[in-house]
């Protein structure tokens, strides 16, 4: 195919080809980001004995790591907006490696907090966000499948890391293990190397000069700048707010879909992780031996592993994709229902059933976690959206297990913790369901209005803007149009200055 003479006429996301290699890279990267903090728990007893600290002081390492991974989301987004995914992931991998290697030479628990908690946590944050972002750039039609496959990295990595960590610990002690783990984390750099940048800059080889500006405009995704930039492409927004928005799109807070997602997810995470943390202790509490209790977690991980790509495939089907938000709310409510039924499980057999269903529900939710956000805000603004969402989730993620723990300690019974988690998640699911119902209706209305104004002179401007935003350009099948159209709606609204709240 001859190169396009027009700088703006770029083809859409490939939906295949090198994209699958990128999915593999994201698989590795996301896997490390989610599974690594959990895998470190094997070393804690030894470190506790070595430094002579209490268990809670050691548990802080995990908390700091988790908090940094989620809290550094916006920084990650800003860096991706500026430099693209690849350099950020490679730098993140390098940082993780440096963090763990320096941790192996630590002589106090405070140094461990810094090296393992902050540095490695920050490196993992720089891994997680860009991996999710680049999937949105490479896929559109098959995006749910790609997301499902990439998120499956988490349980797979966990299943690999747990025995590996045990093996390293038996042979090298905790210091040697940290050293080798630092080297293993460098594989994130390899994953990052696979993230070939994509966008108008790459495709139009001859249009390098204008292409660069296109990239800048594209990745900022600042819709309020769209009309001005259309006329004068060389000019960048010099205004203070616009400059901040260039790096991190705060105008997202006016986006209806984004707000719905944010509130629903923040609520959901309050009860998301606590059951996993307390599943094994609960099993031991009702009299099951240690190995069978650990086996419950393995069942969870295996079912999770299978559920994620499967959910991706289901979410990609033409019946579900247009209504993917409903599917997401359903899976959250299903997850909550599992927890509510858990106290009824009496005996090991029923706990196994619970673990299997929990694994299924957990996988379904995780697979669609980022897909639904992409669906709501569009791939261009997703970069900033994911950063803002993760920092908001950070608080509830950290609060969830301790609240569960206090419930257990106060009442002396695990069932209240399960009831609380179940109730919160069912509530979140119902909330999302209702709000998305309204959202879909309003979007359908706006779609009708948009079609009615097709002959409007403003449509000329819309078309040229469309050409520059290549991710909306390609002609697609019916079901795909709706998620894309609402991106157009969003942009149009920004242009017209209507508030969506």
């Amino acid at each position, binding site marked *: 195919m001859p190169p396009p003479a027009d700088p703006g006429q770029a083809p859409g996301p490939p939906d295949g080809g090198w994209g699958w290699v990128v999915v593999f890279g994201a698989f590795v990267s996301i896997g490390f980001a989610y599974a690594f903090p959990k895998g470190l728990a094997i070393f804690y007893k030894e470190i506790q004995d070595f430094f002579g600290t209490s268990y809670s002081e050691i548990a802080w390492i995990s908390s700091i790591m988790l908090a940094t991974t989620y809290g550094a989301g916006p920084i990650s987004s800003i860096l991706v907006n500026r430099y693209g995914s690849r350099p950020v992931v490679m730098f993140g991998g390098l940082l993780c490696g440096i963090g763990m290697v320096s941790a192996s030479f630590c002589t106090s628990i405070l140094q461990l907090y810094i090296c393992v908690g902050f540095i490695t946590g920050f490196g993992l944050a720089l891994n997680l966000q860009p991996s999710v972002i680049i999937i949105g750039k490479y896929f559109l039609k098959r995006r749910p499948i790609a997301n499902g496959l990439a998120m499956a990295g988490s349980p797979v990595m966990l299943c690999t890391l747990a025995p590996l960590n045990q093996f390293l610990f038996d042979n090298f002690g905790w210091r*040697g293990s940290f050293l080798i783990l630092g080297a293993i984390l460098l594989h994130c750099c390899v994953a990052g190397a696979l993230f070939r940048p994509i966008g108008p800059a790459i495709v139009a080889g001859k249009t390098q000069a204008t292409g660069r500006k296109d990239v800048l405009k594209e990745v900022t995704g600042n819709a309020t700048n769209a009309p001005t930039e259309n006329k004068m492409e060389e000019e960048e927004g010099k205004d203070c707010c616009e400059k901040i928005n260039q790096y991190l799109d705060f105008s997202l807070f006016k986006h209806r879909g984004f707000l719905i997602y944010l509130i629903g997810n923040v609520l959901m995470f309050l009860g998301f992780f606590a059951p996993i943390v307390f599943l094994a202790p609960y099993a031991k509490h009702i009299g099951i031996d240690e190995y069978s209790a650990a086996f419950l977690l393995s069942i969870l991980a295996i079912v999770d592993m299978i559920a994620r790509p499967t959910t991706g495939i289901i979410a990609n089907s033409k019946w579900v994709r247009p209504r993917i938000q409903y599917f997401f709310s359903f899976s959250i409510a299903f997850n909550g229902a599992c927890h509510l039924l858990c106290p009824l499980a009496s005996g090991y057999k029923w706990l196994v059933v619970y673990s299997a269903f929990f694994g299924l529900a957990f996988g379904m939710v995780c697979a669609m976690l980022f897909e639904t956000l992409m669906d709501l805000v569009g791939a261009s603004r997703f970069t900033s959206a994911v950063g803002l969402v993760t920092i908001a989730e950070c608080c509830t993620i950290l609060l969830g297990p301790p609240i569960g723990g206090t419930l257990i300690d106060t009442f002396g019974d695990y069932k209240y913790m399960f009831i609380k988690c179940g109730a919160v998640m069912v509530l979140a699911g119902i909330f999302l369901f209702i709000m998305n119902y309204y959202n879909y209706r309003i979007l359908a209305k706006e779609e009708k209005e948009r079609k009615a104004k097709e002959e409007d002179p403003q449509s000329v401007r819309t078309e040229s803007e469309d050409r520059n935003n290549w991710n909306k350009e390609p002609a697609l099948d019916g079901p795909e149009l709706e998620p894309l159209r609402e991106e157009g709606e969003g942009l149009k609204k920004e242009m017209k200055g209507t508030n969506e709240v």
Partner: protein
Amino acid sequence: MPVSFSGKRLGRLLLLLLCFSPSPSGGSPADAAMTTQDVSQSQANSMTKMQAGLNESSSEPITTTRAVNWQTQRSSSDHLRLEHNASNPALLGPDPTPQEFKQATNENMSNVTVVKHEVLLSGVSGTPVEKTITLDRATRIELLCKLDAKYSHLKSLQVTWKKGNETIRHINKTENSWSVHLQILDNSKLGSYTCTLKGEEEISATFHLQVPKIQGREKPIVSYEGDTAVLICKTFGYTPIAWTWYMANGSDQITINGSLLTDKYVINGGSANVTHLKILKLTKEDDGVYQCEAAFELGKSVGKLKLEVLSLMVPLKPFLAIVAEVVVLVTIVFLYEMYSKKKDKYANEKEFDQVEQLKFEESNGLENSSARHRKI
């Protein structure tokens, strides 16, 4: 036989010791069923009970009576001190002398509860029924073998209680249960006690009396040269009197004295049932098996820990191998990308040139045709 003594206490002590040691005929020393009673209350009672109990035992009556007399006499005078001492853990200090040790034992003897352990025999003969009892201090103990109701039809059962090869006198407590009373004072009393019921079939049960076990580690602790290693031994629920650390070098044991080499070894006891041995500045010679020994009233218990000291090169090799692998992979990825870009560029340029060529030929062709027309 009473030995000539210097101190009053010592003499009393020795007497008591002799009297309470097992006689060759195997009679267990404390025969009377002495349950929880305050000595002050039951002094007289105990006298009579002891003497009544003596009728059953075949041990030397005279010395036992005397011992009992001694005990009850002492109890009456030292009653206050007794109770005080029984509840005062300070008596069981870090480094008690054998005197105080045994005295505490005997004083505790008089007003301590009898711990009862029971085993229900219901199984088929052949399957051994066992029960492990952990004791850390001197106790009065009652071991009971009870026959299940379904076997009550069996008559003419011959019941024997044995420790090793010695037979012990037992009491037929109820119709189908038999018990022995033991006063466990020192290590020699610990072991396995078996009750055997011989009828048409033989049913037996064994009680294993032992000191608390120490939780060591089966897997070795891995550490590095120049680093510090912390070895920990724990007992659960039982507080030993003293902890000692040894290093096993081949076949001999070297005691690790914490007060001697303070820049090499640091021994901490956090709480009484945990001990830490911190070894600083590790070298290859520190590699080996370490033993922590907990001294209880009734004996010693040993835990084994293995320490491995590695040099820094050991983890460094896999580390460098993995880093090299990562660098190679990243290089391959980038090279492949550059190669495929060049290929694309070359292909594009070729096409572009072809297009240009076609355009040129077209325009030339037009000119030629027009020229031809002009000529004609």
